[in-house]
């Protein structure tokens, strides 16, 4: 009985690799407008990511974490949220955070080693990237719980990778969410690797979605390179959460083409050939383009305009970022506590006294 558990979690797809609509579930909602919106956000994310990699290569930022290949998973899910909802990204989710309204300058600043990278624009509930893997799953459960207690209809969506499912916090978070029936969406980007560890060494289960069974919450598996599948399945989970019907687990199957981070060399642990093949067969951008072409939504000039606009905005953000030369050292001290605490104050004074003598 256990052996066929994964058959209960088929991979949900709306648009196949060739850009054909393989099911009609959301046919009426799939408009040219929606497709264009997706394209705009996705191409922006891709260009953002390439910019990040380049900036790192040029030494203009530090280590950078690329996500090329995961755009559909990130954008599709981020666009299912509304303003006021909470987003908890990992270090790889700048596609999602920028689509949800984070400051581009600040996202770049994060990788340039500035605390401002953790600060979202006023009114945007975007948490700083989670560094300790899976720990943010609990925070999202908590903010969701808070919104439920307040009686409003905000939801919390948290990103995490396949590797994150091994941590205890994943388990504790899903259990709390289930027990208190909170409006949280646990959005897993299964890109097949945790740094060098392939998923079959991370877990024996064939799907991540089936882990929802342990908590008796809905679990689904979607083609994470199909932005329509991602968007509508996430929306379904978001709507359920808004209506007080509790949490969901979504497993989005995807792939990162690049390295784990810019300090990592993927050829050490994986066949890069597979990445190339996947790009050819399943790339989320190409797929969307093909779909738009087949539907007659495609307009070359428009697409060029969109890309140009994206590049312009990115260049502006980079320029802004590079204006920031160095933080005021006072930020080290000023936000540790909300009150004056003498060791911190004394150390701050000593620090500036020393600096002024240099």
């Amino acid at each position, binding site marked *: 009985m256990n052996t066929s558990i994964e058959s209960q979690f088929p991979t949900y797809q709306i648009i196949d690799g060739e850009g054909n609509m393989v099911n009609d579930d959301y046919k009426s909602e799939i408009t040219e407008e929606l497709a264009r919106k997706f394209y705009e956000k996705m191409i922006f994310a891709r260009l953002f990511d390439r910019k990040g990699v380049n900036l790192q290569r040029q030494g203009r930022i530090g280590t950078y974490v690329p996500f090329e290949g995961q755009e559909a998973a990130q954008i599709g899910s981020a666009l299912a949220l509304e303003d006021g909802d909470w987003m908890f990204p990992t270090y790889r989710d700048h596609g999602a955070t920028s689509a949800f309204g984070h400051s581009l300058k600040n996202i770049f600043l994060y990788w340039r080693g500035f605390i401002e990278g953790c600060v979202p624009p006023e009114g945007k509930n975007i948490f700083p990237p989670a560094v300790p893997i899976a*720990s943010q799953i*609990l925070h999202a459960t908590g903010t969701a719980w*808070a919104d439920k207690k307040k009686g409003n209809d905000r939801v919390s969506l948290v990103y995490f990778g396949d590797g994150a499912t091994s941590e205890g916090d994943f388990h504790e978070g899903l259990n709390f969410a289930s027990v208190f029936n909170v409006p949280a969406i646990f959005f897993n980007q299964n890109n097949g690797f945790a740094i060098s560890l392939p998923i079959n060494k991370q877990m024996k289960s064939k799907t991540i979605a089936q882990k929802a069974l342990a908590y008796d919450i809905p679990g689904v598996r979607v083609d994470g390179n199909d932005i329509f599948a991602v968007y509508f399945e996430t929306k379904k989970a978001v709507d359920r959460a808004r209506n007080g019907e509790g949490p969901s687990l979504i497993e989005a199957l995807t792939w990162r083409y690049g390295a784990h981070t810019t300090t990592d060399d993927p050829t050490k642990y994986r066949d890069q050939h597979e990445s190339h093949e996947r790009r050819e067969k399943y790339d989320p951008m190409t797929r969307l383009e093909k779909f738009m072409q087949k539907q007659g939504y495609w307009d070359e000039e428009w697409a060029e305009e969109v890309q140009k606009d994206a590049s312009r905005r990115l260049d502006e953000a980079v320029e802004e970022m590079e204006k920031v030369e160095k933080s005021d050292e006072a930020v080290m001290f000023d936000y540790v506590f909300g009150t004056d605490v003498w060791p911190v104050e004394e150390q701050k004074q000593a620090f500036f006294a020393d600096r002024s003598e240099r």
Partner: protein
Amino acid sequence: MTVAINTKKMTLVQAVTDGLRTMLEEDERVLLLGEDVGVNGGVFRATDGLCEAFGEERVIDTPLAESGIVGTSIGLAMNGFIPIVEIQFLGFIYPAFNQIMTHATRIRARTKGRFTVPMVIRAPYGAGVRAPEIHSDSAEALFTHMPGIKVVVPSNPYDAKGLLIASIEDPDPVLFLEPMKIYRAGKGEVPEGKYTVEIGKGNRLKEGEDVSIFAWGAMVKVAMDAAEKMEEKGVSCDVIDLRTLYPLDKDIIAETVQKTGRAVIVHEAPLSGGVGSDIVSLINDTSFLYMRAPIERVAGFDTPMPFFNLEDDYIPDSTRVQKAIEKAVSF
């Protein structure tokens, strides 16, 4: 003008309950969470009656998962609530260590104050009640070395309530340690309603000239007993209940040792790496020229808290403190 304040005699644990009740009434953002804090009223009855009074939405029995409790409470705190988390015994806080060390304590600093975590983590701690293994740890020093959290330890009912309310009103995480050995060791007068005892301030319990004695929590009684015995032998002791372990009350520490020139520190936690060393450092920093003898530390040993048939051998007692005082004054 004098204000008549009604007081009631209560134990330390009752004062904790009273403080919680006061703040649940006062501020609807306050929530209690933890294992068995609801219907059962806590394994030490610290939350007795509160679930009945305030309902399950505010006094919440959680699943058995400390990282889960602290981690979700961080989310609650960032989104408008003031969670007061009970860790059933301090020895069970370790599964939550990552959430405290990398999140609760850093979120304000990481976001330039955009998100904050007003949260109190309460935990009974220390030995002396013949509890099983791991239940008697004194791990305060793990938290005084953790930037972004305050550590508070009351030693009597009045302080317990006042410090607890101050902790709840503090905009940052506070670890509030309740010495279980003295949970019910006698009653004290506790004012009704809301009042605070300032975090970061020690309390002089006895005025003296020859030696300064520092203690906190359950060790305050031990220190006082030793001081009284030594007075009989003509040694005059200045006894300070530190009450807050981070930030330490530097002023009172410097002031007393500059008067006496001698110091004895008493704590239950292992000697190495204990808060005692930080007090020694502060004395070194502030009062080097005043010191007339090496500072004595009377502490637990660098061993796990032993099984309870030996716990009285582990915990510093009055005799050990007296000897340390003698050593300090006869140097």
